[in-house]
């Protein structure tokens, strides 16, 4: 642990920031020490983002002091913060997909050789050097657009710290990462910590925070509700503080599985890389798909939903055989897909809630060629009440809804389309704990109604707790199916990591 006598590298003292109608930060104080990993936790809207924006010079506090090595400073813009060694990795990626890894790392601060000429050779060399130092196995000449999300995340970090970073701020760096990538990232952070870098780490996933960080600060409604002295690193205590009430069960699993088979898949293979996949899901059952990112879980979902062309296999829903060659066919068969990336694949941001919900089952609302908008409104209101979606969803563009509400809107779409089998691909990614629990309750509601759920999740605790059975996916095939209660964390990691020859290099 940190020496208490040491001077903090950065100190925020009584910071307040007010936006129209909301006190985003209300007298927040926090101290960051060199060589310490400091977690900043809180639900969405608790003020975490505002705080890191202030610390990285993107926004100015209305009152309060920022101190750097004991001296009060003003961070008027991001450049000022960067000059003082603050490197921030924001949630939204800031990489240019058509440029190489090296070009991205030096974007904005290129090395010149006399006048306007850029020194590409030295940038290549230095990029390679940075990647080597961080133990990131990536060729600096590769195009960023061709990298996986996880690799892009690592490039993002390399870009942030290539200047001599003394403070690294990470805003939910693991949302898109799998278990192994998270391990690699944590290894990287521990090494940086040893070199005396201060790290501010923001995450929704409490399980990973516990093993990694030295101190925890919890924000709620713009105020610090727990400081370094008071916090013990106990998940239940943290959750309680964050939500402000005790959540009885983080995973309120109901066992609703029946004996009655609803979805049957035989020898499914697809152009997307799915190979010989067979499984059954019963009415009321949650069938989990576990495995690392890139193992083929999402591809199985895409094949079932008619997005990727099938090359072989048969799909039965309720004992009836369906030929599925487009999403429309899948929808008609009663299969639904809630995609991994609701921002890019799920929502119509130009619509309010009602047309978002009706989009897959619009036919039901059409009489004599006309969409019955009154019925559409009634339908939307019904789902808003039933799924406890924010009432604003009816009139407001879904753009303005929280992540949890957005996810519920996408799920409501499939309920309206009378889907019997719902494939949920990372349904709780990037939403806060209260919203996660709401999604879990929704899964219970779906299974209680006799629907079947195929759950894809990289959060192992969630996958094990919410599934009835789990299929472990490797290289596009299901290698093993087990009862969820017989599966544990290390089992999932081991079983799915078989394909990663280098996984032993990431051990601690």
């Amino acid at each position, binding site marked *: 642990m940190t020496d208490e006598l040491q001077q903090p590298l950065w100190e925020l003292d009584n910071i307040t920031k007010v936006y*129209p109608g909301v006190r985003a930060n209300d007298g927040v104080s926090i101290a960051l020490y060199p060589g310490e990993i400091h977690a900043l936790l809180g639900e969405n809207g608790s003020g975490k983002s505002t705080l890191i924006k202030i610390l990285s010079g993107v926004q100015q506090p209305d009152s309060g002091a920022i101190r750097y090595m004991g001296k009060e400073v003003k961070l008027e813009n991001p450049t000022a913060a960067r000059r003082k060694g603050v490197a921030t990795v924001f949630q939204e990626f800031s990489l240019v997909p058509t440029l190489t890894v090296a070009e991205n790392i030096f974007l904005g601060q290129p090395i010149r050789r006399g006048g306007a000429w850029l020194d590409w050779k030295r940038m290549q060399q230095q990029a390679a050097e940075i990647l080597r130092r961080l133990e990131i196995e990536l060729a600096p000449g590769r195009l960023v657009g061709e990298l996986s999300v996880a690799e892009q995340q690592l490039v993002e970090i390399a870009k942030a710290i290539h200047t001599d970073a003394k403070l690294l701020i990470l805003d939910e760096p693991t949302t898109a990462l799998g278990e192994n990538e998270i391990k690699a990232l944590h290894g990287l952070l521990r090494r940086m910590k040893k070199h005396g870098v201060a790290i501010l780490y923001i995450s929704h996933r409490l399980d990973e925070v516990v093993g990694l960080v030295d101190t925890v600060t919890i924000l709620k409604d713009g105020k610090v509700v727990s400081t370094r002295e008071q916090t013990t690193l106990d998940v239940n205590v943290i959750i309680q503080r964050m939500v402000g009430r005790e959540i009885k069960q983080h995973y309120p699993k109901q066992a609703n599985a029946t004996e009655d088979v609803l979805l049957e898949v035989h020898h499914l293979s697809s152009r997307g890389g799915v190979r010989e996949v067979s499984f059954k899901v019963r009415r009321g059952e949650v069938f989990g798909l576990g495995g690392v990112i890139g193992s083929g879980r999402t591809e199985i979902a895409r094949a079932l939903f008619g997005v990727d062309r099938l090359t072989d296999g048969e799909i039965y829903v309720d004992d009836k055989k369906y030929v599925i060659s487009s999403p429309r066919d899948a929808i008609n068969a009663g299969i639904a897909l809630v995609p991994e990336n609701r921002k*890019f694949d799920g929502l*119509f941001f*130009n*619509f309010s809630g009602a*047309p978002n919900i009706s989009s897959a089952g*619009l036919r039901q609302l059409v009489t004599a060629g006309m969409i019955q*908008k009154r019925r559409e409104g009634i339908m939307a209101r019904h789902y808003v009440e039933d799924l406890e979606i924010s009432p*604003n969803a009816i009139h407001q563009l879904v753009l303005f809804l929280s992540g949890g509400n957005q996810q519920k809107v996408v799920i409501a779409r499939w309920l309206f389309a009378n889907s019997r089998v719902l494939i949920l691909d990372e349904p709780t990614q990037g939403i806060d704990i209260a919203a996660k629990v709401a999604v879990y309750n929704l899964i219970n509601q779906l299974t209680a109604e006799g629907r079947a759920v195929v759950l894809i999740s990289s959060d192992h605790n969630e996958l094990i707790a919410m599934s009835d059975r789990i299929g472990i996916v490797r290289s596009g095939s299901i290698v093993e199916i087990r009862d969820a209660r017989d599966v544990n964390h290390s089992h999932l990691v081991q079983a799915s990591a078989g394909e990663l020859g280098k996984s032993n290099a990431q051990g601690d």
Partner: protein
Amino acid sequence: MAQRSWISRVTQADFVGPLAALLAISAFIAITTPGFLDLQNFRNISLQMAVLAIVAIGSTVVILTGGIDLSPGSMIAILTMALAVMIKMEGWALWLSLLLTLVLGGLLGAINGALVAYLRIPAFIATLATLSAFRGISLTIAGGSPIFQLSEDLRQLFYGTLFGIPLPFVYVVVLYLIFYVLLDHMKLGREIYAVGGNESAAKLSGINVARVRFLAFVLAGVCTAIGAVLLAARLNSGSPNYGDGVELQAIAAAVVGGASLAGGRGRIFNTLIGALIIIVVQNGLNLNAVSTSMQNLTIGLIIVVAVGFDIWGRPIRQWFGGLRRATA
């Protein structure tokens, strides 16, 4: 939940900006230019705007899907020539010639649609190609010379009146109503907005994205054909030189009316307001004997200012929106 007051509903409505701009511009011209407020001038404006307003419907539909159509100007050249040949050289009945012209417009639109939706050539490139190709085809019809004196009945389609109302005005109103119903109340319209808003989500909602894109171009072709018929009727002739630059004015009308070139956002009646703004400005400049080059320059300025207002206005509106939510 608080019911939204009618004041906030009116001020939030998306036609307010363009309509206010139209009224302000009209007021300014009315004050500075004698003759603008004459009944005869209003008649002129309604005649002048018909072709543009109708072609702009098609452009808006394509823009709503996230595409763009650069070919209507050249399409008009082919269509007026084809109509002229059918009436004057083949001597076919007017109704048959008109019908075939509309079908031909739909077919030309289908060529654009097939290139974009099924061969997946970006709309800008595909219609840039047909912009050139269609003009070329029009020059091969009847040796490329204009055909005059088509038919008095055809002329009456433009210069006639219905209960004293100029017919072009009637066409515009009827077509805009039809497309309002299509876009706002029918499945295809909803799908057009969905494809433009988020193609991937549309696909995953079971919408046949390629079909929607294709049909949007077919509709644009039919709208252009109606515009071409009116132009041929007005000038009682067909020519491979007709329609030059109409596509840009039609796109400008949609954009000035607030349609987003990214797709998914825009209202059909706003396009009508956009077309009116362009025509009213042209009319005002004409009355003041301003040269064509200066008119083009002015329209360029209008586009920049209109889009600028939309973009600068967004943070302001969001701020007010945030305030209202916070106090609700």
